[in-house]
């Protein structure tokens, strides 16, 4: 999901919670209220949150599989091709020796599966990204320690600065703040 571009009036409104359960609950309520463009920030992965946000994407596993297949083909193909390209006859042994080729084929399968998996994860997450409007929120540094944040993005169809703030207030967060767009090269 793309995050809001600077064309909307605000980046979003952020609510801070001090318990993970409260955040999961807040995500459920926001979705029930019709908000779709929301995100949550937590200090550690929470499985319930993934469900609450209805995140069903499987592109990373598929990329991993694709990487593995690519690596296997590359590894085996490279050995076959180079052996045919410069044939060396040693004691009449077969030029193409599948058992001897398997090890490198396997290693490259693993290598490319992992490269695709991790590279794909970073690209899909739009990382590295060194600046982000959310970093301007007070206390956001606690999102990597013990606090839990919910953001409703400014480009949600139902977003309205006052009404959305009132809605979030009803979820009894510790704090609420409006996040402006910050100037950034993108």
């Amino acid at each position, binding site marked *: 999901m793309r995050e809001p571009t600077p064309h909307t009036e605000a980046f979003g409104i952020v609510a801070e919670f001090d318990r993970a359960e409260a955040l999961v609950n807040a995500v459920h309520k926001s979705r029930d209220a019709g908000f779709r463009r929301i995100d949550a920030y937590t200090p550690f992965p929470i499985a319930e949150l993934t469900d609450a946000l209805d995140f069903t*994407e499987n592109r990373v596993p598929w990329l991993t599989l694709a990487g593995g297949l690519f690596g296997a083909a590359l590894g085996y193909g490279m050995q076959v091709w180079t052996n045919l390209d410069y044939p060396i006859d040693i004691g009449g042994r077969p030029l193409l020796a599948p058992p001897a080729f398997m090890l490198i084929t396997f290693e490259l399968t693993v290598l490319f599966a992992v490269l695709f998996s991790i590279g794909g994860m*970073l690209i899909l997450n739009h990382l590295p990204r060194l600046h982000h409007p959310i970093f301007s929120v007070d206390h956001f540094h606690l999102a990597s*320690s013990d606090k839990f944040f919910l953001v409703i993005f400014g480009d949600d169809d139902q977003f309205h600065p006052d009404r959305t703030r009132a809605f979030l207030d009803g979820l009894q967060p510790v704090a609420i703040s409006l996040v402006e767009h910050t100037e950034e090269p993108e």
Partner: protein
Amino acid sequence: MTDRYAGITEEITRIPVAYPKPGAWWICFGVALCLLALFLVSAGMLFWKGVGIWGNNIPVNWGLAISNYVWFLGIGHAGTLISALLLLGQHWRNALNRFAEAMTLFAVICAGLYPILHLGRPWRFYWMAPYPNVMNIWPQFKSPLAWDFFAVLTYLTVSVLFWYIGIVPDLASTRDRARKRLPQVLYGLFALGWRGSARHWARWRQSYRLTAAIAVPLVVSVHSEISLLFAAGPIPGWNSTVFPPYFVLGAAFSGFAVVAMIAVVLRHALGLGDLVTPRHLDLLGKFTLATGMMTAYGYWAEAFDVLYAGEDRELATLADRAGGSYAWSYWGAIIANFVPLQLLWVRRVRRHPVALFLIALSVTIGMWFERYMLLVTALYRDYLVSSWGEYHASLWEWGLFAGMLGVFLVPFLLFVRFLPVISSFEVKEALFEERGG
């Protein structure tokens, strides 16, 4: 409960932010730097004069270099295996996996350097890579040397990536806690702008788990590959079918021993007693004991094979191992590996840091004896009397070995000083899940 989260974050990030007891760290770092200097001198001498400065000869053309290669790579494997326990949902791994993985990285670097230094013309190691060249020839892919190149390179790359994406959220946490500008900028750069978005976490988890799942067969393949390096040579004592599992388990055995040693030292030096608890030491003790007994089976199976087959030269190699010029390495391996190990059957010994450390040290040394024994006792007496000869490591080889410990220790000490040594977000996640959310 949230206090506990903040407490864990604080306990782990305070180490890179404001290192406790920097005096002791500087002493260790100074020693490690001296060892690194010794490595540079020994390697420089090797580059200048050639492999002739080593004791390698014909028939014993594999000496300390290759036995240390196998030893270091073996040590690395435990880190990967501990990380892969993630798949089994074992929460206790969280207190150990970060520094175990760092140990893997640096051990693999040390291991990878050895075959290169052993090449004779080390500056041409890249000939092992399939690159288009004017002579229009390619690497010999049917040779174990080429397998080595791909196995070590893949293992190193995968270990680096796995460790790095595992540390990114904690780098973000350290960035948020750093007080000075320069650390903020540096941790910020390496944290890649991580902000703990739920969608990021979801993709991160998919990628992290898949990599862990792929790492287990990778460990098995890398160390089996090393045993094939032996088995592909028609040398008595190197052709046992038990080799691949025996090598992999021996690797895990030495690796768990080193993880146990590091755990005991870090726990004491950094005051991490409530994260690395006696329970963790207990589990490391159990793993060391279990893999040790499996390695003992390998010793037994190897001897049984030889006696059952009754082939002359194999029998003679077995006799050479038990009573030849290098019998000290055979008996050294058996005694150091398996005698103190039996103490680990006792729960109190496993939970006692000093006892566990000493037993692990004995295992580490014993496994070094074993790698030496496997190489030299097989090579020094071949089928023909004309190809019999002795091998004695030269001072330069010992210098390189001691220096290689510096290659391991310098980056490891920098890691301890500047990076979160324990995975704080995974400890918090485990706490969250154990308390029923």
